[in-house]
């Protein structure tokens, strides 16, 4: 029963119903009966088309061919590209951290642990892995990548563990704690990036101005001209692994039960605290791994190294409703949007990369709106009084 209860649009109703005798017209939001998948997809499609149409209107007003722009955007600038393999490589390099971070966030969100500290955990991973890369430059590149990953996962994971411990022990608000770690991590990285001193091995020694030093990049598999970074393969394995973990393992099952009802989990004999700690460690460690991968693939760190994946990952996770295949796909599409938009904007002096953000916002908004209208409809309902009035009038007509 409660499922079908309408959300009364109270404000709307109040406005319309001013005055007792006004013949009120009511608007309700009514939950639709379940839609078929293709219908749902159609709504999303319409939403995206509307967003693209608004974007096209803006482009046209700037005297830019929307068709050219969109074709360049959706092909991530591959058509007519002198180095298409580089474009794909760079695409993957942005895709990998977003995917891992979104997956890791989904893991904690699934348990209703609001880890919004993706940025911070990413930076911790990047910074600590950079220590390995800088301090042991002579290592075998595979060994180095492994070592960087392990260190980053441990350091970031321990941060997550500490926050989870605060939560389980003192019931602190994990949202605030993870959020604050974001800023702490950012300022730590900024400190190392701006402090010129002999002990500061993070900086280039030949530069008068402070600048992070470079280190060996991660190894790649050569496929013709195309360089497939190891991280891409590992990431796909991780995605499959997490999907399997959540779906088929006892631990994944525990996460689902806790996310659904903490008390049910306790009643079933689950050690909710231990599972919270374990899951948050995994989540933070994976985000740290994304940080290590990014540091390793660019061979350098910076304060901008996260590319906001800690935030974008939250959007991806929610947009996909925490479904793992959904995250793989939607982070892919969001990367296309980000990457493609940047590539397309470069061609037009009148458009800067902010247009990419605008378009991305439009599309995300449209997808969310479409999702809403796929589940709800707005109906206008004649009130009892109105109907009565109409009937009354009918009668009069008959009488006359």
């Amino acid at each position, binding site marked *: 029963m409660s499922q079908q209860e309408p959300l009364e649009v109270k404000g709307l109703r109040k406005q319309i119903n001013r005055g007792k005798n006004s013949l009120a017209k009511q608007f309700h939001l009514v939950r639709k009966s379940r839609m078929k*998948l293709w219908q749902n*997809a*159609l709504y*999303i*499609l319409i939403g*995206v*088309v509307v967003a693209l149409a608004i974007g096209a209107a803006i482009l046209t007003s700037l005297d830019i*061919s929307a*068709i*050219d722009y*969109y*074709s360049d955007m*959706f*092909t991530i*600038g591959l*058509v*007519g*590209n*002198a*180095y*298409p393999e*580089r*474009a794909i*490589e*760079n695409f993957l*390099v942005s895709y990998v951290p977003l995917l891992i971070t979104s997956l890791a966030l989904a893991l904690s969100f699934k348990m209703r642990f609001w880890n919004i500290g993706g940025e911070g955990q990413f930076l911790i991973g990047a910074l600590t892995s950079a220590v390995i890369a800088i301090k042991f430059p002579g290592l075998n590149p595979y060994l180095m990548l492994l070592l960087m990953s392990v260190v980053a996962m441990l350091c970031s994971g321990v941060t997550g563990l500490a926050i989870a411990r605060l939560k389980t022990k003192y019931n602190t608000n994990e949202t605030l704690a993870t959020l604050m770690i974001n800023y702490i991590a950012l300022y730590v990285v900024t400190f190392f990036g701006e402090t*010129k001193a002999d002990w500061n091995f993070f900086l280039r020694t*030949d*530069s*008068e*101005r402070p*600048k992070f030093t*470079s280190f060996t990049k991660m190894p790649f598999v050569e496929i013709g001209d195309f360089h497939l970074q190891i991280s891409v393969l590992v990431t796909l394995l991780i995605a499959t692994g997490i999907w399997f973990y959540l779906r088929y393992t006892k631990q994944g099952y525990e996460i689902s039960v806790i996310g659904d009802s903490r008390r049910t989990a306790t009643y079933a004999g689950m050690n909710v605290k231990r599972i919270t700690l374990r899951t948050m460690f995994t989540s933070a460690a994976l985000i740290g791994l994304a940080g290590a991968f990014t540091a390793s*693939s*660019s*061979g*350098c760190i*910076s304060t*901008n*190294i996260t*590319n906001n994946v800690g935030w974008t990952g939250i959007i991806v996770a929610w947009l*996909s*409703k925490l*479904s*793992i*295949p*959904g995250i793989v*796909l939607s982070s892919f*599409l969001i990367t*296309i949007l980000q990457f493609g938009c940047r590539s397309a*904007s*470069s*061609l037009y*002096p*009148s458009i*800067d*990369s*902010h247009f990419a953000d605008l378009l991305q916002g439009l*599309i995300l908004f449209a*997808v969310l709106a479409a999702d809403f209208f796929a589940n709800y409809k707005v109906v206008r309902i004649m009130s009892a009084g109105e109907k009565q009035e109409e009937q009354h009038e009918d009668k009069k007509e008959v009488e006359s």
Partner: protein
Amino acid sequence: MRSILKKMLGVALAASLCLGAVACKKKDSKSDFKVGAIYINSQNDTSGYTYAHHKGITTAMEAAGLSVKDDLIIVDNVPEDDEAVRAAIDTLAGKGCKIIFGISFGYINAMDAAAKDYPDIIFSHGTGYLSNDTNFNNYFGRIYQARYLAGIAAGYKSLELGNNNIGYVSAYGTEYAETCSGINAFTLGCLSVNKDATVHVYELNTWGDIEKERQAAQILIDTYGCCVIAQHCDSAQPQLVAAEKGFFGCGYNSDMAVDAPSAHLTAPVWNWNVYYQLAIETARDDAKNFMSKVGNYYGGLKENFVDISPLTENVPAPAATAIATARELMVKGEWDVFSGVALSFDASGNMTKSDVALVTNDGTEIVAAGGASVEDGVITGSMNYFVAGVIQEQ
């Protein structure tokens, strides 16, 4: 879960629809020579660092007969992150750029690495210090020379007002040789006219905080009694504050007489187009000899790469004569700012040269009396001291 998949498929479908309709249609280009640029801020900025470079590149391209609309490819808002810069370079390379300018110092690692991977593309890095023999140079300018000239104008104004306190709002102090040399050159310019002048420096520790820039100017005027406010920061706020309080100032980057006509004296400005035209034309016509013809570029008054904006009516008359004299010496290469020879100007603008040691404000001698100018590397890289006459207030 599956519904999400479908939704995503929907998005993909929309994408492919748009694609299918237009896949074969591409923008025609009129010339094969394309210029690439990587900006730290937005190309649509209307003031500031990125704006100055963007204006320089577009002016240069028009002068070189290239179409800005078709031949200039820009990736903007690129943070100083190697990954992001590398992606921008790859994008520009993919679009067929033959020369790529990177305007921000932090692009250095990525440009250095990319120069090796793209031997056919020329990489030109603003404010940097790395280069190679074939396709990677750096460029910067002797803005200190222009600052010296602005200092002369400020010195005459302080004499006229009978107030020896001059303020200087600077993004950074001794941390960056660029800001440090600017403060020193301006101070030496002031001292050449008014031996008793003191330059009060207020450091902001940021490149872009309009509110701080405004507050700094107010403090310099209210607390330290400064009558002229010079600046090394992006916005015109210090000039506006000077105008509001009835005092005077020297802007930076653009002729800020537009912003504060009642206060402005003159401003050191960059003519980035001078370098960009040279670089673009050389890259287009004789790319193989780019490094020998252009090399690491460090232009000054001589090349007209730096200059000061026209003196306003607020500048006392003799300053024009003095500035012309000093400029001529520097253009001819007979004298430079950071040397053991000091210029001094009298009340009517007549110059006398004398051998005076260059000394820091804590008394350390940098150049002995009569000694030659310090090396360019010091000015661009390692200068980390203030000359006598500078007081660091914040």
